[in-house]
């Protein structure tokens, strides 16, 4: 049976409904939400480029900070800290919301907003006026607004190494890489959250998180994709996003010759993605030949994800020399190790030489790339990472397709899978949801055990 993209969305929503079902009361105020996550953040600054992107990082950022604009559930831009905006020529003027305060008690001003955007985007020309900021540059209104939704463009007041936001929770205690305590911001411009506080434990493996949940020490955890089916069958409250994480093989450099490019194509054709998904991932996610998942682009099926060993062998046969590729992976992740071994076997079947390695400088590696909720943002970010120039950063669906094709033709990346971000909560956590882009919305979450 085919599972259509829209049906997938519906199925995803049903899964989510299982979590939020039994909502027989209005939300209650109070209580402390306990969260565990894999990422061990060394900084809470959303623009700190030394901190790897992860859904965990985005979740923490969304609790403390706000962006100027956001995407709504129908993928349209909606106001946040910017109340409205106008584009004129190469300028975008954003009018800043009044009566918003940072957690340190100071008012949100155009100057602070401009300073925050300049810090995150040194190449941008941002000017502050009394009630607005103007951004000048060679980009379209749509492109810039989409950029402003990104977590790294959250508005931050930086003062002597400390960061302050305008989000629903303020920082109470922060132990870099291990522990974060947040408290409800009573005067949050979006309204005080229902939860009184949130305690976040970082650097916890999937296994440790599940143990904590089973022992009742935590209310919300992340779940590895291969565990989703089992946990669903156990009847736990699990919620998953749309497939939003791209698992891909990424080469350290571009192909230097057509022959090397052909060998990379042979490797792409040799990987049995469907078997990997069905066996290693227990059916989670989707086999991917495209960077963007089908639910996001609508055309992803055009890039084949099927295995074609005869064509792979044919391409390999045309090569005069066969390089001995070293495939890197996260040695701390058991699933990555299995993936690497399976890919090496598939490559061997096509006559390619691929060895797994724990070396810090492999020829290629298994990358887990969290995509953005917006197709152009996702492609733009990836193109920057791969060093692939894009002629357009926003435009029609056909231009999106052309941009994706350009990145794939660079030979730097071989898509393997699109995986959802999945979370499990204790039954007492209510009204939480997973956004399509993989983050958890706790804005309106509340605890059944809370006392008003």
């Amino acid at each position, binding site marked *: 049976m085919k599972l259509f993209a*829209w049906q997938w969305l519906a199925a995803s929503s049903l899964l989510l409904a299982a979590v939020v079902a039994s909502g027989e009361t*209005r939300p209650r105020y109070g209580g402390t939400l306990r969260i565990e996550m894999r990422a061990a953040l060394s900084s809470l600054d959303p623009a700190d480029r030394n901190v790897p992107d992860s859904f965990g990082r985005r979740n923490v950022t969304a609790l403390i900070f706000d962006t100027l604009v956001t995407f709504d559930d129908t993928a349209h831009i909606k106001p946040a800290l910017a109340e409205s905006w106008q584009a004129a020529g190469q300028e975008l003027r954003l009018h800043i919301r009044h009566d918003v305060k940072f957690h340190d008690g100071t008012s949100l001003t155009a100057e602070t907003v401009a300073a925050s955007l300049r810090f995150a985007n040194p190449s941008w020309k941002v000017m502050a006026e009394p009630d607005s900021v103007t951004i000048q540059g060679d980009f379209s209104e749509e492109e810039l607004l989409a950029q402003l939704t990104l977590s790294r463009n959250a508005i931050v007041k930086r003062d002597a190494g400390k960061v302050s936001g305008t989000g629903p929770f303020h920082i109470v205690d922060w132990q870099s890489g291990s522990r974060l305590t947040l408290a409800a911001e009573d005067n949050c411009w979006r309204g005080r959250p229902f939860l009184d506080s949130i305690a976040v434990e970082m650097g916890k493996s999937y296994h440790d998180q599940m143990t904590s949940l089973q022992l009742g020490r935590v209310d919300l955890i992340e779940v590895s994709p291969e565990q989703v089916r089992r946990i669903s069958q156990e009847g736990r409250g699990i919620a998953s996003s749309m497939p939003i994480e791209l698992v891909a093989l990424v080469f350290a450099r571009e192909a230097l010759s057509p022959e090397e490019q052909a060998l990379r194509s042979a490797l792409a054709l040799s990987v049995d993605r469907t078997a990997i998904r069905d066996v290693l991932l227990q059916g989670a996610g989707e086999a991917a030949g495209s960077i963007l998942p089908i639910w996001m682009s609508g055309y992803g099926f055009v890039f084949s994800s099927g295995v074609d060993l005869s064509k792979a062998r044919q391409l390999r046969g045309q090569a005069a020399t066969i390089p001995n590729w070293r495939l890197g992976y996260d040695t701390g992740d058991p699933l990555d190790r299995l993936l690497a071994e399976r890919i090496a076997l598939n490559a061997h079947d096509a006559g390619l030489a691929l060895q797994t390695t724990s070396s810090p400088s492999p020829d290629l590696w298994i990358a887990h790339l969290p995509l953005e909720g917006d197709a152009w943002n996702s492609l733009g970010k990836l193109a920057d990472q791969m060093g692939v120039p894009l002629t357009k950063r926003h435009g029609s669906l056909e231009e999106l397709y052309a941009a994706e094709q350009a990145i794939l033709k660079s030979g730097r990346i071989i898509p393997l899978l699109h995986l959802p971000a999945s979370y499990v909560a204790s039954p007492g956590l209510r009204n939480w949801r997973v956004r399509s882009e993989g983050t958890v919305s706790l804005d309106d979450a509340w605890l059944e055990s809370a006392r008003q």
Partner: protein
Amino acid sequence: MLISVLVLGLAIAAHAVDWSAPEHELAHKIVALTGNAAISLSFENRSSLGRRDAEIIQNGLRGSLVAMGVQFVQNDPAAAKVVISFSENVTSYVWVAQVQKTGSDTAVVMVQVPRAASIRSARESVPINLRKVLLWSQAEQILDVAVLEENVRVAVLSPEKVFVYRIRGGNPALEGAAEISHSTPWPRDLRGRIVPAGDHMLDVYLPGIACHSSAGGAFILNCREENDPWPLIFASSGGAGTSSQVMAQAFFEASRNFFTGVETPPGGWLKIVPQFYSAALIPRDGDALWLFASVNGSIHIVDGAADRVTNLKWGSDLTSLRTSCGAGWQVLATSPVEDGSDSVRAYEVPERDPVAVSAAVDFSGPISALWAEAKGDSAVAIARNPETGNYEAFRLAVACGQ
């Protein structure tokens, strides 16, 4: 942007979708690649489009291609092979044509077609009928709706504004709008009431804020930070056109989403009950039976003698109506939210335990407000439609069973 539709009892008519523009656009893009040469054409449906729609679109595309001079062939290796896939992304249908010409790479062209919202039909026929009529729909959040003059004027309460619309020829025209001034941010799960007033147009109740419209002339709203009790239950004294009185009021917690538990029932004396989200009142001889949806999730039934915690599986919103049906007073209660949808059912309380007297009326999204209307014999329920994203206000009225 406010997108509003006043429906007031009108049925929504389903309409056929016109696919001709995107059909023509895609056909044009295909012909730009193939020219007028003969092609081998096939289709696949990867989308949620139904079989009938898919067939209509296939026929339309064939017709457009023929009109552009394209001929179709089968099993001709020299002909360009065109595979059209009906797919979709999060916002639109996406129709993709993969064009394979002999000796060339596959070329891809596509069009994007906004997805129309589907329309669900209502159902139900039961002894006491609970009738649901769409009053108002808009993209902006609705807290409450008050019909100021039947089929003539309606007021809509949003978090930051009150809008007054005049209905002309079935179409709403904005007559006035007024901002609601407040110095502190609203609490989450914001609730509010808008109630027609006797000597002026309307009163507005929000957490910690009370507003009164001006008595005449332009629509002006005077708001002040004070904790007036909110009206909960009304009862009209007679037939149509007669005035109604407030049967019960309660104080709302200014920074939260519940009533404090202090009631001012008929007679004006204060009554202390548990904090609650909503309440219903059934007058009895010389006394009254109260039903509360308390903040701990349980339904309390309180009479002059006792406060009883029930095991009723109701939602957080209930109210009561005085009607000419059945026992004369019915309680409307929401259901526990399951699968994201919600429902309201009418109950009577012959002794002390509620008995369902109507079938459940379904809502596609969770109900965020259920308030008795000022005339006392109907209620307004607000729910967000998950398909359109719009907030919808419905009037719920009890009709006596046949």
